[in-house]
């Protein structure tokens, strides 16, 4: 099992967490109901204390093992300084304005690209979004330190760029209707198969 983009990952997460939420609410409700009954409640399942603790440990550690093995950008991120990338794109931000590497960026499917972003004043964010508003990925952009990320796009599409970190009200027009840091359809990914993946 491998997630090829954030849409697949978050859809899975949405279902998994919703099931968990329904379970925990139901368990406490069942528990509360049986607390008040004279008749002894029948245990649905008996879990010894140490099994419960082992379950929590397994849940905490297993979650990270699961994501490391199913989300491709985790290992890519940890080892990014040892990898040779296909293309590097340099961005600079100052006074809520981007200096872009090009007006439009076209990336071939499966290419490993690096986004290297520098802030000259405040803390910003670097986030790419699909046309439906869903997030592709983001990172923080701190002044005075390195802000680089590797990314491999496996789905075609056009992506907007904006700052994902609040850096004061000057990011917006006075009426609040326009995000002045949003660059529409800056990145275009081409050459992927219809359902995702390199042709």
């Amino acid at each position, binding site marked *: 099992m491998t997630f090829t983009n954030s849409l697949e*990952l*978050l859809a899975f*997460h*949405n279902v998994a*967490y919703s099931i*968990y*939420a329904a379970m*925990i*609410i139901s368990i*406490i409700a069942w*528990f*509360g109901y*049986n*607390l008040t*009954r*004279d008749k*002894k409640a029948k245990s649905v399942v008996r879990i010894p204390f140490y099994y*419960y*603790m082992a379950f*929590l440990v397994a849940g*905490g*550690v297993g*979650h*990270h093992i699961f*994501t*490391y093995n*199913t*989300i491709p*950008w*985790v290992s890519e991120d*940890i080892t990014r300084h040892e990898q040779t990338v296909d293309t590097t794109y340099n961005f600079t931000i100052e006074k809520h304005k981007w200096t872009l590497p090009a007006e439009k960026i076209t990336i071939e499917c499966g290419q490993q690209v690096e986004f290297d972003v520098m802030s000259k*004043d*405040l*803390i910003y*964010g670097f*986030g790419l979004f*699909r046309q439906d*508003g*869903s*997030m*592709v*990925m*983001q*990172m923080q952009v*701190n*002044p*005075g*330190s*390195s*802000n680089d990320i590797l990314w491999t796009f496996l789905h075609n599409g056009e992506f907007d760029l904006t700052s*994902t*970190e609040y*850096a*004061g*009200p000057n*990011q917006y027009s*006075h*009426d*609040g*209707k326009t995000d002045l840091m949003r660059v529409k359809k800056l990145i275009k990914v081409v050459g992927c198969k219809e359902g995702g993946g390199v042709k």
Partner: protein
Amino acid sequence: MSFVNTLMNGTNFDHKSLNALQKVTLRAVVMSFLFFGLVAIEGMIMRMVSTGSANPLPEMFSHPEHYFSIMTVHPIVGIFGSTYQLVFAAFMFLVPYLTKKPLYSVKLANFVWLSITIGTALAWIAGFVWQYAPLYTLYWPLPADTEQFQLIGGIVFILGVALIMIGTFGFIYNIYATIFARVGVHKDKTTKELLISGFGIDGMLNLWNKLRGKQPYSKEPALALPVVAIFRGTVDTFLDAVVILGAGLLVLVYLIFDASGAPLNVATIDALLYKNFFWWGLDLVADGLVLIYVAGSWYLLATLITGQKLFMENVARAALMLELLVSWMVWSHHLLGDQGQPEMMKLISGEMVTAFELLTQGLALFITLVTLWKARPLKMTMELKYLLGGLVGFGLAIPAAIIQADMGMNRVLHNTQWIIMAHVHIALIVGLYMTLYSALYVLWPLVTNNTKMWSAKLSNTHFWMYLIGGIGMGAFGGMAGLDGMLRRHLYINGEYNTYMILAAICGSMILIAWAIFLFNVVMSVGVKGLIGIFLPAEDKTTSYGLEDTLPSPEPEFSKK
């Protein structure tokens, strides 16, 4: 009794019968709930703005300066003005009550609620009048950016926050001075014995001796378990106040130099290093004192509600110590999106140690549930209902955060509505406040000298509206986060509209629930009683229930 008569005089509340400790407790509680109303209104304004064309509010609320100044003061009013005040009030009453000793100083307790109230008001004024809006994160160098914010606004805001922290130091001093006072039952105890008990070392030694088949180190620990939790959580409260005050002073120095016409270079301070320092301190609230105080409150409430001893008490004592150590090492989960942060810190502090919170909080949940279960059958009282609500809140909120404290998930969830709604708001509104409401119902007869609550129906209405509204708002906001909605961003064009309308409906349930609760309390104590709380106490006693035994009486209702 006529409605007007009850409104003016309450049910059977007599403020003149209250002693100094009861009055100072109630003063802070009143201020806390007034600030809760303010924070709920602020929250609703932000929810309404996010509904786009459905927003009925005047256009000015959508202006970024206005919107973000509300977003800046919202957590200050909510966390410090309301939550801190309520928690501090409860603990300044509970520590003397549980240790059977007088509070160290009622004057200091009065100073605490006054300074936090004035400090919160100043921070709010800085946002309202000068639209100072660096957000509570105070990410460097934004708070010192005088191109975007007026200097005077910054100075007033920082003075307000500093006053809140000074009040916090007052609370800490009062608590420790009371715990370490060698009077009453602690007359023959040494400071060392009290310290060992306060840190839970006696619990650990008891467990260790049990494993070796030896006699327990201490059969009767010097401090009751809830006092241990208060003691332990207050360590984090202190460290957090030092960090926030330190950050505030740094901002103040820069603002003052700016005002003098000789501005300092903001680049001298490394933004990432500052972020580490600030999150280390700020996280001691979220992952430190809140979790420790809450675990302690659950244990206290479970024992008071059941009238029985806590299940696995030694494990609970030891776990509180573990929670304290864990809380000092988890801040990096806030920096998983910062590429300059060393990978090992992300991995160890941000992921692995953070995952430990699943264990410590899971343990607290388990111990509380088993303690209740062993005492079956129980009556479904208001305090039990709220306690179960609090357990649901943390049962939902903790895993929501653990999921995001992962390098893979954080890449697509950081700074979205997921963390602020599905985690923070559910943890605070449902988990923490439901626990606090439970404590309030338990303490109500003690603090008010058995005043009858006016209406059981209103209490129940408050419970259900608050629970459904709190979970609903968090859930719909969280879903918007999964769809890419950012948390510190302005959306006024109807983006994520469906979720935002649903979240606003649930948010308004919380606001209405608050109004219902407040009305019920006012009808119970009466307007005259409410004013009387703020008049000097005739009875100067600074302790409560020296002869009382647990459990406390259940609150009575005037109307069913």
